[in-house]
């Protein structure tokens, strides 16, 4: 059996499983080589689409190209498929507008505020099929569950009284009268106010019920709550208050991280602007700040934030990456002010040989 016949046999096996419509074939002549050639044409035509989309394996692609080079009918078919592909590509995918994306994000944020994540018992109750499937395919897991269940039953019978004592101990450890809040226990910050004429800050935050923490900006608990509010709060007014206070301590690494996060991710342009202002002094000494300011200059949807970012990169305008960004903005930015300012900043730079 020739190589081509073997190849076709493979293809035929594969295509017999497919639902691809085959053309009716009735050999006119009993010439075996002609039969093989025509069947090869069938295979090629079924795979031309995959070839055009770059989805053929190397050996199949090589074989298809070899055949097309020899067969004018298949070459015409390939050309036709490529033209069709080009025709479809004339209508590109419509990119969502920045406004639509921003509106969608805000709507989602509001919905997430009231949404709750499913708990493990929820999944167990509502998706028992998945658990059964898992157990079905994991005999070891099934055995382990059986053994644990059996041991648990025996334990419960003989050690009921002992367990009660232990459980009460665990409950007292899990619910200590600790005053330090942690991210897991805080569900949200409801308000932040600074006592006028002092460095005292009053933060109302929620765990299961609203709680109140008071202290100065140097107080670790207050700092933790402010950092939490800057990243996690759905109320933009509270985020603004927290970022506003955090801007007083931009030299703290955690605070600077939170400000960078707000600059890059906050949906409120006022908060982004405030973070930008606080980070500005570090644009020369901290490369992360420089890159974040550059990203805001290029990508931020708010012209005010972009303009502020442009002013802030003034001290590092000679850096290679900054110069590259300025050149791109000077050439084709949609905002006329940014374009003009970028040109003017570039003009002040010495020429590079």
């Amino acid at each position, binding site marked *: 059996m020739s190589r081509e016949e073997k190849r076709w046999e493979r293809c035929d096996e594969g295509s017999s499983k497919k639902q691809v419509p085959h053309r009716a074939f009735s050999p006119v002549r009993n010439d075996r080589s002609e039969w093989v050639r025509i069947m090869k044409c069938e295979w090629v035509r079924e795979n031309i689409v995959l070839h055009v989309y770059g989805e053929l394996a190397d050996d199949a692609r090589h074989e298809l190209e070899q055949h097309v080079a020899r067969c004018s009918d298949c070459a015409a078919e390939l050309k036709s498929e490529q033209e069709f592909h080009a025709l479809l590509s*004339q209508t590109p995918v*419509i990119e969502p507008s920045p406004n639509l994306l921003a509106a969608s994000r805000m709507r989602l944020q509001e919905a997430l505020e009231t949404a709750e*994540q499913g708990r493990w018992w929820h999944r167990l109750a509502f998706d028992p099929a998945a658990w059964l499937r898992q157990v079905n395919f994991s005999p070891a897991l099934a055995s382990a569950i059986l053994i644990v269940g059996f041991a648990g039953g025996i334990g419960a019978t003989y050690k009921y009284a002992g367990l009660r004592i232990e459980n009460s101990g665990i409950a007292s450890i899990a619910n200590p009268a600790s005053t330090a809040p942690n991210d897991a226990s805080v569900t949200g910050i409801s308000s932040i106010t600074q006592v006028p004429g002092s460095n005292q800050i009053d933060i109302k935050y929620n765990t299961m019920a609203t709680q109140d923490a008071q202290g100065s900006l140097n107080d670790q608990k207050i700092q933790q709550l402010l950092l939490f509010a800057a990243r996690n709060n759905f109320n933009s007014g509270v985020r603004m208050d927290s970022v506003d206070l955090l801007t007083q301590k931009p030299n703290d690494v955690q605070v600077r991280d939170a400000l960078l996060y707000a600059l890059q991710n906050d949906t409120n342009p006022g908060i982004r602007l405030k973070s930008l202002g606080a980070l500005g002094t570090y644009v020369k000494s901290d490369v992360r700040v420089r890159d974040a300011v550059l990203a805001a200059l290029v990508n931020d949807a708010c012209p005010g934030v972009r303009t502020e970012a442009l002013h802030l990169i003034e001290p590092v305008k000679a850096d290679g990456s900054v110069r590259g960004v300025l050149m791109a903005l000077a050439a084709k930015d949609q905002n006329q002010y940014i374009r003009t300012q970028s040109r003017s900043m570039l003009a002040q730079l010495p020429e590079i040989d």
Partner: protein
Amino acid sequence: MAGQERRIDDTMLIREAQRGNHAAFEELVRNYDQAVLRLAMHLTGNETEAQDVYQDAFLKAYKNIGSFRFECSFYTWIYRIVTNLCLDHLRKKNVRKEDAPVAADGDGGEYSLLDQVPDGRAGANPERDLMRRELGKRIHGALEKLTPRERMVFELKHYHGLKLRTVGEILHTTEETAKNTLFRATQKLRGALGEMR
């Protein structure tokens, strides 16, 4: 390498989101929401419905992030949720048979999304622009005639450039079935748009 880094980042964000960290989930959303909105817009042909799909998809992801077991990438998982929502939408739409894709303007009026396709080619002129829009409408009409599953495979492959193996994973099927579906879809489209070439 970049893909691997993204996957590591995603893993950390998912674990944080599973612990109830809203910010981590928001970051995951921001990594993928533009692609999700683009897919929803193209499949629904309507900005309002695309926003609904976007909203439902990420809310569903948020509620079920706890059951994410890292058996596939987050990308595949969120695309699976979106494609299921879009398939439901397309099936309903096939019953209703709606018109051309529309968006709402600031005054509440509607305009065709196909008219918004930018023409970045040099030398574009009004006549060519008109022909391009006509072509867009014809292609949209031909896509509407595909079955929801054919449409989905074609969209993911042609317009979003995903590998058929990934398309198969997203649609809970094999790469081979995705290949056959793509073949059928292109045959139908060629039949419907044959006279335009």
